[in-house]
């Protein structure tokens, strides 16, 4: 027998254990209805595998674990699933929780189950999985899924295995009786755990008030190959607390906020060892446990082997309860147990004791008196806290101070409340403070999250605003420059062609066009309705057309001469470009009209077609003029690099073309037949134009670059620009990835293309310049 150390504090409440150890463990009668809570363990609630009305066999899995820290659930007997839904469960809150209700058919028919022949030959993982499938969770009190603890060997070095047989709470004798009657099963279970964890040392911690159990264990352990020590510790509550028992047996303290495995120790309850034994050697899942039924309100206090899910009432009946004497029903021990409000609450995997107490046995606590700081609580606190201070802080809601006094190291053992001469329900105060702090923390986290989100949003809005502002400024500058250029141009034009009043001609042409349109409309309407003087209208249209043509011709003739002279006069390419664009627009409109007419099967198609071809000519002319001008401009730029070439506008042009092209392509897909071929033609044209624009742009750019090279370029600026362009691209890409709306996406895509181009161009430029 090894040395036993001591932990601080502790109390000696009346043991009341003798009553229930007089008779051996007896099987509880098979209950009619069993209530199986889906959550009997720490972690996630199990998820049901059965439906209402299913027949299940004894040992059949009826709920499977969800996630790593969870435990499965098995039918304790054969029967029919009656319902799955809320039912009162043994919990301090008194709330209901989801339960599977089985109506037993009385046959107690086992599902096929098999023991493991030789577990030592199995992979540890397989063996642990088997234990997990058997739904074993710690049977001492917390109900921690056992398989998780057995996996600990993977990332912790476990050198000590402690089997907790202290059973320090008064009244409870379930473990005591288990040791007296099933010591060989306990040893078998320890062997399995030892096989999995491979500890160098195994200790069984047991209080000295269980001499019979100690004796039995010693007998069984004789000649055992394992390094097992029975350590008899003095009877003192709460020596069975995991941390206290570790201190008692090893003199090591588990650091605050850590688990025993962090210091190489694993604790298992003695009841859990038998469950593991039965799971491995008999293939039986955890469907029953030993429950101490005791208290002054039962005639025959005893230990019953009860199926999980058995209502307390059945067990109380088996122990002959005096209904009229029953005052308080406690699940667990008198120090840490929870009261249950009625007897239909079921036995779960952690139910080690049911105390049916009379009012004399557990009278209501006397009224709370003032704390006189006598410090008796401090003397008994096993966690070496200052319960009196914690009480003041909890009561005064000084939670910061309570935390500073290690409130969260309190194990709620109740020793302080037990000795308090002022009958202060200290544990309640600590629970209150803990939950308040937890709530506060959760709220704090939520608030922090919200603040972060708000700040991020604010930053984004500011950034966007700044970008918008920058764009607006750029546009304004652009406009100012354009205005200046136009003025210059106008002056030039005025000097070149003083006689010609182009704007007057333009107006005349526009008026003529409008008239033509009106006439055309009237004609269409007349045709459709089949009324009116169609021929007269047709004549009117003809007349309007002629006049419009004339006006246009006059305008064109006035316009044309100015085109060749423009570059010579240092003219405005932009205007030409506009002219070309206008021509194109007209062309497009004409095409639309034509198409419309064709669709409707109207006559006058030939005329329209003719107009279209004229327009096409015009557009081409305008384009040509533009290009000529551009070429001239680019050649002049070469000569004088300082001359302002509007690269940006060009680029824009190119990108606009590209967008159009894309749109047209997209539109094309939706069309068929005649229309398709027409559209294809148009598309081809567009493509050409795009290519042209691109060329123009590139040429201009090349010119600029050359000029820059000739001048000695500001490489640094270029680099910065390139980097910025790249950044813009990534940003757009990101935005694109986030956006879901179709329209926004399209515009973003277009922007992205532009940005990419820009970035590429800049990069190229940079590369070109860099070698120099």
């Amino acid at each position, binding site marked *: 027998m090894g040395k036993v150390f001591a932990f601080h504090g502790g109390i000696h409440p009346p043991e009341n254990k003798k009553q229930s150890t007089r008779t051996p463990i007896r099987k509880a009668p098979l209950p009619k209805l069993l209530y199986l809570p889906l959550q009997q363990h720490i972690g996630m609630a199990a998820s049901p595998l059965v439906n209402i009305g299913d027949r299940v066999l004894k040992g059949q899995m009826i709920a499977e674990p969800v996630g790593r820290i969870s435990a499965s659930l098995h039918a304790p007997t054969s029967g029919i699933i009656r319902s799955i839904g809320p039912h009162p469960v043994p919990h301090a809150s008194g709330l209901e929780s989801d339960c599977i209700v089985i109506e037993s058919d009385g046959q107690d028919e086992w599902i096929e189950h098999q023991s493991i022949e030789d577990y030592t030959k199995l992979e540890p993982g397989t063996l642990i999985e088997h234990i997990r499938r058997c739904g074993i969770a710690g049977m001492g009190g917390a109900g921690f899924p056992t398989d998780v603890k057995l996996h600990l060997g993977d990332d912790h070095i476990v050198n000590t295995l402690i089997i907790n047989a202290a059973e320090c709470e008064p009244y409870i004798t379930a473990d005591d009786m288990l040791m007296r009657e099933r010591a060989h099963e306990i040893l078998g279970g320890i062997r399995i755990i030892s096989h999995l964890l491979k500890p160098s040392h195994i200790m069984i911690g047991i209080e000295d008030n269980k001499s019979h159990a100690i004796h039995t264990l010693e007998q069984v352990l004789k000649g055992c190959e394992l390094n097992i020590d029975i350590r008899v510790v003095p009877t003192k509550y709460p020596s069975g607390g995991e941390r206290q028992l570790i201190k008692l047996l090893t003199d090591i303290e588990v*650091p605050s906020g*850590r688990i025993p495995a962090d210091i190489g120790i694993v604790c298992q309850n003695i009841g859990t060892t038998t469950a593991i034994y039965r799971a491995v050697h008999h293939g039986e899942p955890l469907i029953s446990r030993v429950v101490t039924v005791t208290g002054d309100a039962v005639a025959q206090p005893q230990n019953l082997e009860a199926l999980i899910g058995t209502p307390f009432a059945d067990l109380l009946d088996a122990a002959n309860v005096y209904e009229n004497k029953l005052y*308080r*029903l406690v699940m667990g021990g008198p*120090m840490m147990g929870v*009261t249950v409000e009625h007897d239909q609450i079921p036995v779960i995997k952690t139910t080690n004791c049911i105390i049916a107490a009379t009012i004399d046995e557990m009278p209501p606590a006397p009224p709370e008196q003032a704390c006189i700081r006598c410090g008796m609580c*401090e003397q008994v606190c*096993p*966690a070496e806290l200052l319960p009196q201070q914690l009480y003041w802080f909890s009561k005064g809601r000084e939670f910061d101070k309570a935390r500073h*006094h290690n409130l969260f190291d309190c194990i709620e053992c109740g020793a302080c409340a037990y000795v308090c001469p002022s009958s202060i329900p200290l544990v309640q105060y600590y629970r209150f403070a803990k939950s308040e702090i937890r709530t506060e923390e959760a709220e704090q986290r939520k608030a922090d999250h919200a603040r972060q989100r708000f700040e991020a949003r604010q930053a984004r809005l500011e950034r966007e605003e700044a970008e918008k502002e920058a764009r607006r400024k750029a546009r304004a500058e652009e406009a100012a420059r354009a205005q200046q250029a136009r003025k210059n141009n106008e002056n030039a034009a005025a000097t070149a062609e003083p006689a010609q009043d182009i704007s007057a001609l333009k107006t005349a042409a526009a008026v003529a066009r409008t008239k033509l349109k009106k006439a055309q409309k009237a004609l269409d309407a007349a045709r459709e309705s089949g009324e009116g003087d169609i021929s007269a209208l047709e004549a009117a249209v003809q007349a309007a057309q002629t006049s419009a043509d004339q006006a246009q011709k006059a305008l064109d003739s006035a316009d044309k001469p100015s085109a060749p002279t423009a570059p010579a006069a240092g003219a405005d390419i932009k205007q030409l470009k506009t002219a070309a664009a206008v021509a194109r627009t007209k062309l497009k409109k004409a095409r639309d009209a034509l198409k419309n007419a064709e669709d409707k099967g109207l006559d006058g198609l030939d005329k329209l077609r003719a107009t279209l071809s004229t327009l096409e000519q015009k557009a081409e002319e305008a384009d040509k003029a533009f290009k000529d001008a551009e070429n001239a401009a680019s050649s002049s730029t070469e000569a004088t690099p300082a001359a302002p070439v509007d690269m940006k506008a060009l680029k824009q042009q190119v990108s606009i073309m590209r967008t159009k092209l894309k749109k047209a392509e997209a539109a094309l897909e939706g069309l068929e037949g005649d229309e398709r071929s027409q559209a294809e033609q148009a598309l081809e044209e567009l493509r050409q134009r795009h290519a042209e624009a691109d060329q123009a742009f590139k040429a201009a750019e090349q010119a600029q670059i050359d000029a820059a090279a000739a001048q000695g370029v500001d490489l640094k600026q270029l680099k910065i620009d390139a980097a910025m362009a790249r950044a813009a691209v990534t940003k757009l890409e990101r935005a694109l990835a986030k956006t879901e709306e179709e329209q926004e996406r399209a515009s973003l895509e277009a922007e992205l293309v532009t940005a990419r181009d820009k970035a590429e161009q800049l990069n190229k430029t940079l590369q070109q310049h860099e070698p120099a």
Partner: protein
Amino acid sequence: MSLIRMSSPHVYKANSTANVMRLVLLATLPGITALTVFFGWGTLIQIVWAALLAVAFEAAILKLRRRPLGFYLSDGSAIVTALLLAVAIPPFAPWWVTAVGVFVAIVIAKHLYGGLGQNPFNPAMVAYALLLISFPVEMTRWTSPFVLNGEGWPVASFMDTLGAIFGSVEHIWYDSFTGATPLDELRHRGGLTTEETWRQSLVLSQGIGAWHAVSAAWFMGGIFLLYRKIITWHAPISMLLALAVCATLFYGFDPDSYADPFFHLSTGATMLAAFFIITDPVSSATSNRGRIIFGASIGVLIFIIRTWGNYPDGVAFAVLLLNLAAPFIDLYSQPRSYGHSRANKGRGGKA
């Protein structure tokens, strides 16, 4: 079926504040007996008078504060306070001195701060200090031990003492029964060495035994409280040790000017303070470590006040000063909790 729902734990030790107070009262019996034997009926009369006043004041103030009378009166704390004050004041002190003292203790020092458990100062010591400062003549007229009065047991008769306290007897009468205490003698000895004083003073050479006996009686009561775990050893032992160490150092350095450690431990209110005054849980430091600091500081202060102060005994002042320091001591005397490598200090939180 509907049963009671309650939070754990479900069992309680048969223990109550009233029980604690009863045990304290029981522990004072040897001391009271010794005082009565050596100094006459005065002590007993004072105790009864003070207890009556205390209950009356407590009831009145509870009534004013609209608290349930029976519930609060039954805890017995008022009687303990009254008793501690009564054994501290001279047995022949006039009735009104006691009345003022009890009023100050119960009404001002205890209830004006919020009642039991809320008072920062030891009520009995607040009252004693106030009386000592306000009525120095009455408060320094301590009775001579009976051995100085002649053969047999010549203490003043019960009725005479009663009369003296309640003001119907001439001053001259009880002047014959009062005298300086050993601490007074040693404090006001002029230029004499300790040994010369000892030889000259009757109280020191013959009457000192009475004080020794009374101290021993208090000590017995203290052992009883320790045994019953009503108090812990931390404060009393550290106080006695600190006082003894101080006294030994100075006595060893200059025996002519300073009294020996045994004298310090066995006269005046040393033992009463160690086991009954500084162990008042409400106003002392909280943790075990804190109580060691608290007790030791009081021991040192008692020695300082006795040796160099204006008053022959300094228990009341020392205790009050340390009551003042107790919250501060609490900040720096948290125990090291299970699973922590170091004890927390200070206020915690952001500070």
